[in-house]
């Protein structure tokens, strides 16, 4: 089985749940979800990875080096929002 590789990954040790990436994402991929993780009581989660177009707008706008987007062209294997295993090459 291929190694898990989502199009966009949040580093939960660095994310401050500021919400900036969520605002700039044109595809509504990301969401703030209630979590006992940071002092804001929420965490940025990749909720709909299958919709990500890898435009990197979230990555350039994130002030905390907490979100990284995989280059277009790199093969992806991830679980989508419906629980299905997806493989995408482009």
């Amino acid at each position: 089985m291929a190694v898990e590789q989502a199009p966009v990954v949040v580093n939960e040790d660095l994310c401050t749940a500021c919400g900036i990436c969520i605002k700039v994402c044109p595809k509504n991929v990301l969401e703030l979800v209630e979590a006992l993780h940071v002092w804001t009581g929420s965490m940025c989660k990749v909720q709909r990875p299958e919709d990500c177009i890898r435009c990197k707008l979230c990555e350039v706008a994130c002030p905390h080096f907490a979100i990284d987007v995989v280059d277009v062209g790199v093969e992806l294997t991830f679980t989508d929002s419906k629980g299905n295993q997806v493989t995408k090459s482009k």
Partner: protein
Amino acid sequence: MATDYSKYLRMEKLPLYWCPGCGNGTILKAMITAIDELGWQNDDIMMVSGIGCSSRATGYVDFHTIHTLHGRAVPVATAIKMCHPDMHVIVFSGDGDSTAIGGNHFIHACRRNIDLTVIIVDNWIYGMTGGQYSPLTPTGTKASTMPRGNIDPNFDIAELAKGAGATFVARSSVADPMILKNYIKKGLSHKGMSVIDALSNCHIQWGRRNKYGDPVKLVDLIKEKTVTKAKAAKMSEEELKGKYVTGILYENTAKKEYTQAYKELVEKAQNE
């Protein structure tokens, strides 16, 4: 290609100490990405900062770094550039740091056209010390030392830099981080004094006093307040009031750079 930020950051110092959503990180990331695209080596870069929230940036990067005194980043950077003309010297400075206490140093570095790249994190306030107003605080907006609204007219830092003699002047903001990165890249490549006015969100010290305590809302406000150079050309003076014109605002490659002038002087003296 994706930028590997860990190549440029002291990862053990993360997470960043800045407030959630603070524009300092966005601007630092734009600078790092610009350096990555230029292919510069960490050891060829000297990054200098003064004091302030933004000035803490030097602590996070794996270049040669000096975190100097409030307002004194530019003279320290000037000295380093004079001793090491081949080094890429970058100043990362707040609006207070560069235009209030450090204003005099700043204009004289512009006048000399020394090859520094000065990135001004223009968040309209003294962030670190509790929201005192700076020379870049927009007129009419509130600060801890202007609780009824700032009566001071603010500097247009781009005009100031150009008037003082800088040879590359650009402005962008955290609302357009990709464009900001491109301007920083151009500024870094320019031989001479480059000034990048990077409008930034301090939603805590400026924002909370002005009903923009949320970083997303303040970034939106910054977006609203910026107009591109092309658009501005078609707007009246009245329409441009309170707006920030973005773009590469001035570029001059004819004026002699200061370390070059000094090198020529030394060579001339040696041949006498």
